[in-house]
């Protein structure tokens, strides 16, 4: 026990000397395991958030942000431990087996009543994923045109209230358990369009959906129904302050924007929906 | 009197067990023939063969001179001409007594319910069941059920009736009412074959008694001879056991 504490102290000291202006030390005694930062992601974790479902590589936007936050908090890369959870595991009452959980969780006031979120690390544009056939059929990037489409979304995401809030389509949307089922329904012609965060939509349209297309986007800085991702933590987690400090530092230094530029495709050329 | 039914050399086997080993039997129009014999001697099987419920392996069965045992013959029209009543009544439990009786005339003879109403009611009344037509089998006593089963067979206006130990499942005090029905049928000249353990009754009403032993008719003749002076030792032995 003493050895572990000592080595953790050493690691902390090393980290704090390495990172000028960092928040090293703020996590002391607040993590699950002393000297180790346990981070949860999805099972599987999806591109482009995590490449090849291997967060340990630090490749992919969320994986990269995770290591940057960890470093900012004073954890070496090898002091970061990854675990996997479903959404339900993340919100169930009782002890958590992670310090924070990152898998594109949107911050909403309702959710904040049950769990804690960090400050946002990403503001997501929402994009309309569809197929070439639907575009050829005359669908356009206008609300009026979108209303007439048959919509689909992943049931556990904030895309569901956004479809209702931003588009209010004529018929009720169909909802699915995961991305794969949404694209299957799109392919089967059971839905015309689905709402995803822009990076996911770009990936799905380019790689997964045959003849996929992005019809348009609701840009990230919209005022109505904004979608911001935060790190999810147990309600009342003492670590929140430390995590928020680290994120603020990354934003101030421009490091977060750099990671975004590096890992998330540029959304240029996707028309904005009026 | 003419021969209504003539069996010659009728054989029936179940696997290795030959149950009818060449049966010859002649039944005259209006005759009542009783089959007696030990349990397992083949009485039921013989009746089921006549009714074509069991296909016959060999031999002929002439009904009005026509061979009904011919392989490949459609059995349904033949069965419609021969009525059969079973030891365990076999009424259809989900139908009322009247529905039990009307089903076959409706489906086989294509008669309507309204057509059948009068004759069926008459049959029920004749056998003192006029007030039981709307009852389900489980609301009837054993004797009443067996009488309904007889009415059901009679409603098809059969030319011959086969009875397979129809009183064996009845309480003793109910046997009489069923035997009365048989007496009444005999009085009106119905041709009947009856497998029975009621020796006194056979003695009283049979025109001919056949003693079956291990799949053969060992001895046949008028009841006075069979019961009074049997020719075969086996017959005598059987009778001494049951009388």
């Amino acid at each position, binding site marked *: 026990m003493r050895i572990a504490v000592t080595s953790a102290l050493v690691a902390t000291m090393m980290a704090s000397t390495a990172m000028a202006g960092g928040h090293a030390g703020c996590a002391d005694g607040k993590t699950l395991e002393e000297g180790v930062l346990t981070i949860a992601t999805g099972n599987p974790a999806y591109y482009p958030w995590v490449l090849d479902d291997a967060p340990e590589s630090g490749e992919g936007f969320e994986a990269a942000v995770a290591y940057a936050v960890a470093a900012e908090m004073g954890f070496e890369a090898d002091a970061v431990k990854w675990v996997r959870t479903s959404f339900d595991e993340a919100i*169930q009452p009782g002890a958590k087996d992670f310090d924070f959980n990152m898998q594109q969780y949107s911050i909403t006031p*309702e959710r904040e009543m*049950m769990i804690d979120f960090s400050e946002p690390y990403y503001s997501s544009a929402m994009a309309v994923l569809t197929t070439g056939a639907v575009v050829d059929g005359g669908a356009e990037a206008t609300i009026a045109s979108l209303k007439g489409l048959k919509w689909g979304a992943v049931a556990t995401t904030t895309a569901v209230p956004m479809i209702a809030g931003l588009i209010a389509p004529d018929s009720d949307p169909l*909802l699915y358990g995961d991305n794969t*089922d949404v694209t299957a329904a799109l392919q089967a012609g*059971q839905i015309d369009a689905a709402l995803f965060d822009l990076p996911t939509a770009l990936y799905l349209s380019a790689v997964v959906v045959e003849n996929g297309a992005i019809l348009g986007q609701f840009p990230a800085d919209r005022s109505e129904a904004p979608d911001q991702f935060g790190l999810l933590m147990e309600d009342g987690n003492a670590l929140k302050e430390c995590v928020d400090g680290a994120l603020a530092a990354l934003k101030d230094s421009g490091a977060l924007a750099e990671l975004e530029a590096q890992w998330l495709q540029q959304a240029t050329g996707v028309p904005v929906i009026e | 009197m003419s021969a209504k039914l003539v069996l010659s050399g009728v054989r029936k086997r179940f696997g290795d067990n030959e149950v009818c080993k060449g049966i010859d039997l002649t039944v005259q129009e209006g005759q009542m023939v009783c089959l007696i014999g030990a349990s397992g001697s083949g009485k039921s099987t013989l009746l089921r063969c006549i009714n074509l419920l069991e296909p016959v392996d060999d031999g002929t069965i002439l009904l009005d001179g026509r061979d009904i045992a011919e392989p490949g013959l459609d059995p*349904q029209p033949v069965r*419609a001409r021969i009525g059969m009543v079973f030891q365990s009544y076999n009424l259809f439990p989900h139908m009322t007594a009247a529905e039990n009786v009307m089903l076959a005339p409706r489906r086989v003879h294509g008669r309507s319910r309204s057509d059948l109403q009068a004759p069926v009611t008459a049959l029920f009344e004749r056998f003192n069941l006029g007030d039981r037509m709307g009852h389900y089998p*489980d609301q009837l006593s054993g004797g009443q059920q067996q009488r309904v089963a007889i009415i059901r067979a009679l409603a098809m206006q059969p030319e011959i009736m086969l009875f397979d130990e129809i009183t064996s499942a009845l309480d003793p005090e109910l046997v009489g009412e069923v035997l009365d029905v048989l007496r009444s049928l005999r009085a009106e000249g119905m041709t009947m074959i009856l497998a029975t353990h009621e020796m006194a009754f056979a003695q009283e009403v049979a025109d001919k008694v056949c003693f079956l032993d291990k799949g053969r008719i060992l001895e046949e003749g008028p009841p006075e001879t069979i019961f009074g002076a049997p020719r075969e030792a086996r017959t005598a032995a059987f009778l001494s056991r049951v009388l």
Partner: protein
Amino acid sequence: MSGSETTAGGLSRRAAYEARQRKRAMRVAAGSTAAVVLALVLLVPLAPGWEKVQRSFFNGEVFAKTFPGLLEAFLTNIYIFAWCAPLIAVLGLVIALCRDVRAPALYPLRLFGAIYTDVFRGLPVILVIYLVGFGIPGLGLPRPWNSPYIWGSLALILVYAAYVAEIIRSGIDSIHGSQRAAAASLGLNEKDTMRFVVLPQAIRNVAPANMNMFIALQKDVALLSFIGPVEIFRQAGVYKSLMANFTPYVGAALIFLAVTIPATRYADYLMQKQRRART
């Protein structure tokens, strides 16, 4: 406690005794039930995590907000059930009859019936729903013929008909040969024997077992949500995600129970009635 009061009411000695026993049994049962409930109500909240569990699963505010939406979504379950159940009954009967045909010319039907029941009873329902619900529309059917409601329902119908067919067939087998013999002796053909004599009894005999199948179907309708339809279970999942709270599932469970418990009781009652009738 004086027994003379009750016997004075004109009851036989035995009836009076049994009435006393019943009253006593009821008092004991009520007492022990109350004790168990009381223990649960008092002890569970003492558990250290209870407050959090209560907030996540039994949250009054969330319940009030989501329950009307859940009820509305339950209508979808009812619709799907309502059109699946009769089709399952019909198809199940047809398959059962296929398996019972004896004419050699119809042997292919018999073979088909056997393969059908083997295959669809051997597959998980959810797999059939995915295969039929996404696969067939994927062949390029135009809307509305590619609707997940149609093909998802078909998947349920195919699977449940296989079970119902087996139940009906066991019912047919349970009818004693003497019933067929009696019908045959009257000159009825095989078709009429089946239709008027065997089937009515067979179906009545297996009614309770089929009741249980339909209770299971009522629950499995929720599986259709995997291919899009927003029925109660999916709606509860949406609420759960939006509010990070499991209370909507509890609401959905209550609605399910409100339907399935009376149905189960009724099936049990039928089964008991039948047992009594047989003995």
